[in-house]
């Protein structure tokens, strides 16, 4: 299946084929980026992700991972360029209880804009995580990716993904003074 790892190398030579790839994956890429940087940056970086994918499509190697993993890898690199912005946003969230990336046209988000102390603590804890640890945490939580899938996205060994996620969880538990049930990544 193209979206999850089909022969994208042979499926990206025309606009229609690339459009199919786009339609299969845009929701996932956007959700991942928007969750980290907000809807506006989500839109911006999602569009950039696909532009970069089109321009560099000849370097996609299906043997190294799925098309979706490849796209999320591009998206993650783009997000990393905004690491400082993301950190500033998290700190602002921690300081004020108001999520700076929330938008007023989203009722669900608006309802939660004024966060409780716990969410503010989480924001502060996330702001203190190293870049890669934060990447792994979001990929596993937001997209429920497995260790193997995350390793494809970030081009890291599975063992590194596992150990970094474990470290990130320990850091968060220490910082938040309690256990976390952060979802998912099973080998």
């Amino acid at each position, binding site marked *: 299946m193209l979206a999850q790892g089909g022969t994208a190398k042979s499926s990206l030579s025309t606009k229609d084929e*690339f459009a199919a790839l786009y339609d299969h994956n845009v929701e996932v890429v956007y959700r991942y980026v928007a969750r980290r940087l907000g809807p506006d940056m989500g839109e911006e970086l999602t*569009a950039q992700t696909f532009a970069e994918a089109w*321009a560099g499509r*000849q370097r*996609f190697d299906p043997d190294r991972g799925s098309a979706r993993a490849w796209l999320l890898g591009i998206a993650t690199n783009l997000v990393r*360029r905004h*690491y400082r912005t993301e950190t500033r946003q998290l700190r602002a969230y921690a300081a004020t209880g108001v999520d700076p990336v929330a938008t007023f046209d989203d009722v669900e988000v608006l309802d939660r804009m004024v966060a409780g102390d716990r969410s503010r603590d989480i924001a502060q804890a996330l702001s203190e995580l190293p870049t890669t640890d934060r990447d792994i945490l979001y990929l596993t939580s937001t997209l429920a990716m497995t260790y193997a899938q995350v390793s494809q996205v970030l081009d890291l060994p599975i063992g590194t993904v596992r150990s970094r996620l474990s470290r990130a969880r320990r850091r968060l538990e220490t910082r938040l003074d309690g256990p976390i049930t952060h979802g998912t990544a099973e080998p």
Partner: protein
Amino acid sequence: MNAPLDPISDFRPDGYGLDDRRRERMRARVLDAIPDAPAAATLVAAPAPAEALVTVAEHPDPWVVEFDSGLDRGLDSGPRRRWGHDPHDSHRSNSRRLLVAAAVAVAIGLLAVVAGNSRSSDRQAGTLDQSSPVVTLDDLATVAATQPDRTLAPGETQYLEFTQAIRRDDGGFDITVDHNWHGIDGSGHRQTDTMVRPEGALPGGEIDHATTATVTDPPGGAWFGPFSYAELRSAPTDPAALLAAATAASPPQHSWAVAEQIAVLESLATTPPEVRAAGLRALATLGFRPIGMVTDPLGHTGAGFQASTTDRTEILAFDPLTGRALGYWSGPGRAAIAPGDAARWGAFGNDAPSAQPG
């Protein structure tokens, strides 16, 4: 002890679904910009850059570019391409004009571009993985070679705009916008707007606007990069030969002139596709290396390439879908930019040929 929680889901709910309006806007932005014609059958992957890659976002003084992908208007049947640009941005209204070689020679000036890589000391936090997908100049050349050709008809002029900003002592920017209209025979008009963007002001918050009187140029000028229009249209399609031609046409006293002139060529609407492709490959031989997509503070984005010496750095940005040059940043190495430094950022903008203004 608190109850267990999911640090992501509990912290920020997944309330960011992709609504139809945003979905359609993104789809149009991405897919409408891709040519309908089949892509080149084979793209040659360039070798990974030898040095760690840095992002412009990490630069101490992020460059600011106003570019106008509307330079494609009239050249393509599809919608305008505006990477990262807010279609409602009022700045775009200024973008219907064109850049001349002389203006760029002044603007990009003081730049020494030599073959070589960024120094290892230039590495900083936020570098990209070398394994990450990065658009190369060769990628862009392949794309550029497939773009439609556009010639200048008798009686038409091409508008080119060049915006540059130089840091003021008070932290703001002195901004000049050169507007140029020139035809096939080299005759045309020039005009310059000047303004000041105070420290902390957002784009659009400029003050002290002024406009110079219109200058009329007689026939015979070379206003298309280092070339006249006829020379542009017959310029070499081999990178080395193009470099030689640009070198021969550039002021020999400036070592940066060749890269500068090539950059201008890459921005012009009427540069033949094969010449544009050759220019992109020529830039690679001058030491420009990919640094990934770069985004300016206005959100404009392009594929970035950097060349550095010990005391100068230049970054060029290109539309990844056309290979057209969008803008540049030029500054003193990677040191923090202090007021009064000759750090500059600028943008190329040009439109399809149009009637010459009265």
